[in-house]
């Protein structure tokens, strides 16, 4: 198949992304930089700096950072355990972890709401074993539990894939050269898992920063994430200009932080790859042409 035909195969995606990404983006930008009357302004963007919005923004950032960090801390030990399992058990474990993702997002959150509510299952169990009930519902902790639960598989899977790709021989070589279990992890496994970690962070950090449904359901509407505020501008206040402005501000922040995360790959790894493919495997390029 020649290059032209292959590009044709991608056309449904292009049409999709023009219709549902590029055009809406242009519309949002237009709203963001204009007043209701249609004159140019930066006020909608700068509104991110006012007290309420800034508080929501920082709270979102905090939630996203904690969520990402918790996902990372939970993912590594689990991945290390799963890695050592026999292939057949490994598939079962992964299936087990992914299973909840097949259930509707809202339903999962509603389930958590019932578990965590003041007379919910959690407190029922705590009381049954003679402990004091916890007041988690509608708190910061409930939101964290919700986002971590939702996004954990997206952190774990890319890390798992990166670590599963490490040759057993490489790990044995490290042991052979004097590395104990901890050193094997810090010097070999962790560095080689970084590409997976980066995609995990990208997939978890951004949505947990911008989500609003979790805060709605588990935060009881009392705790406002920046996503909640934006949503309200669109639905309740019908101030599309302000809503768009805040979205653009958030988007810029996300872009900057992501550029930071991925920067290393672009700078360091690409020339290396280019050199290898250019020298050792010239045939691949020829075949593609």
């Amino acid at each position, binding site marked *: 198949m020649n290059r032209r035909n292959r590009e044709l195969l991608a056309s449904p995606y292009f049409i999709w992304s023009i219709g549902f990404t590029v055009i809406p983006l242009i519309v949002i930008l237009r709203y963001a930089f204009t007043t209701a009357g249609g004159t140019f302004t930066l006020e909608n963007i700068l509104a991110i700096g006012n007290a309420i919005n800034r508080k929501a923004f920082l709270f979102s950032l905090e939630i996203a950072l904690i969520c990402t960090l918790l996902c990372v801390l939970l993912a590594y030990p689990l991945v290390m355990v799963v890695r050592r399992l026999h292939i057949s058990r490994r598939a079962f474990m992964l299936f087990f972890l992914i299973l909840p993702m097949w259930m509707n997002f809202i339903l999962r959150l509603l389930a958590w709401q019932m578990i965590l509510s003041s007379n919910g299952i959690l407190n029922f169990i705590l009381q049954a074993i003679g402990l004091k009930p916890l007041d988690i519902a509608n708190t910061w902790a409930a939101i964290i539990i919700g986002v971590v639960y939702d996004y954990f598989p997206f952190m774990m899977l890319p890390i798992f894939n990166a670590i599963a790709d490490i*040759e057993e*021989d*490489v790990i*044995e*070589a490290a*042991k*052979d*050269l*004097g590395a104990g279990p901890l050193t094997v992890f810090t010097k070999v496994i962790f560095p080689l898992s970084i590409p997976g970690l980066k995609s995990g962070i990208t997939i978890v950090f951004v949505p947990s920063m911008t989500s609003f449904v979790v805060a709605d359901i588990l935060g009881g509407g009392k705790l406002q994430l920046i996503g909640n505020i934006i949503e309200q501008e669109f639905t309740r206040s019908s101030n599309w200009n302000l809503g768009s402005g805040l979205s653009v501000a958030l988007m810029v922040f996300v872009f900057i932080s992501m550029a930071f995360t991925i920067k290393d790959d672009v700078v360091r790894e690409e020339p290396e790859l280019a*050199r290898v493919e250019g020298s050792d495997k010239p045939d691949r390029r020829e075949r593609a042409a």
Partner: protein
Amino acid sequence: MDTILELQNISKSFDGKPIIKELNLEIYKNEFITLLGPSGCGKSTLLRIIGGFETPDTGRVLFDGKDITNLSPDKRRLHTVFQKYSLFPHYDVADNIAFGLKLKKKDKAYIEDKVQYALRLVNMEGFEHRKPNSLSGGQQQRVAIARAIVNEPEVLLLDEPLGALDLKLRQEMQRELMKIKKEVGITFIYVTHDQSEALTMSDRIIVMNQGIIQQMGDPKSIYDEPQNAFVADFIGESNIIDGIMLRDYLVQIQGVDIPCVDIGFKPNEKVDVVIRPEDLSIVEPGRGFTIGRVMEVIYQGAYYDIRVACGDFEWAIQSNNPAMPGSMVGLSILPENIQIMHKPRSSDEQIIEKN
């Protein structure tokens, strides 16, 4: 000679299948010892037991007289070079080589010196800042060897380190490995299934099959005096034919009595007769011990590979002169070039007899 490593009565099974069977072996200081055997005979398993990556079901591994059977690999004073190089892909060449030294918290100047020394030793100066994936297979293997050797192990384990290289590079690396061995003067335990590699490089060869040592000795004795048909067949090409040992110094093959130099068999014992292709000469019909028809003549560069059919047996002969395909020729042999071996009573005879 001083013993550095001793394997005592080592057995190992995987999933109930015995792989190593009550194996005993002493390895001396500074020798180049090769474990040679067909694929799946347990060479790597034995090496991994020595390296600490597998624990034997029974038996002990002694290093300098101390029992290290249950010591983890990082605590053993020996290093392994793996078949698949297994360099750390995220480190450059210098950091790969320095890995072990950094773990031992050596100071910077020492590490730098050592890395340079190791790079020179394996002929890789100037590559210190290349990443492993930008090196060829041979270069990666050199780095892997350097990475092990900088730590000054007393024993270096090499598991088919040249297995993935092409013939020419393999031969070049064989010479270099011998040079390195000479320079660093440590014990090499080398695993291969390539008999010519074993014959070229080793001080001593251990021929293994089915988890049992079939024969050990220096390359010449292994080649010239195989102790059983398996070794004879595995080391170089051999003609292995049924015979009857009529009495001392006389063996009968295909109904012909032939003088030989072997003694100590029962009268009329059925035996395996082993004759190397290069020990047979083609003579005029009627002059040798047998007559046959030339079936095939293949020029191999240094010699002609000739097949001669006598009855239902086809002899392999290596000769400096060609023969005419289809013609009748005689074959002759000197008595001292005939090897007589006891016949296995069953296919794993060697195993029964060893125990």
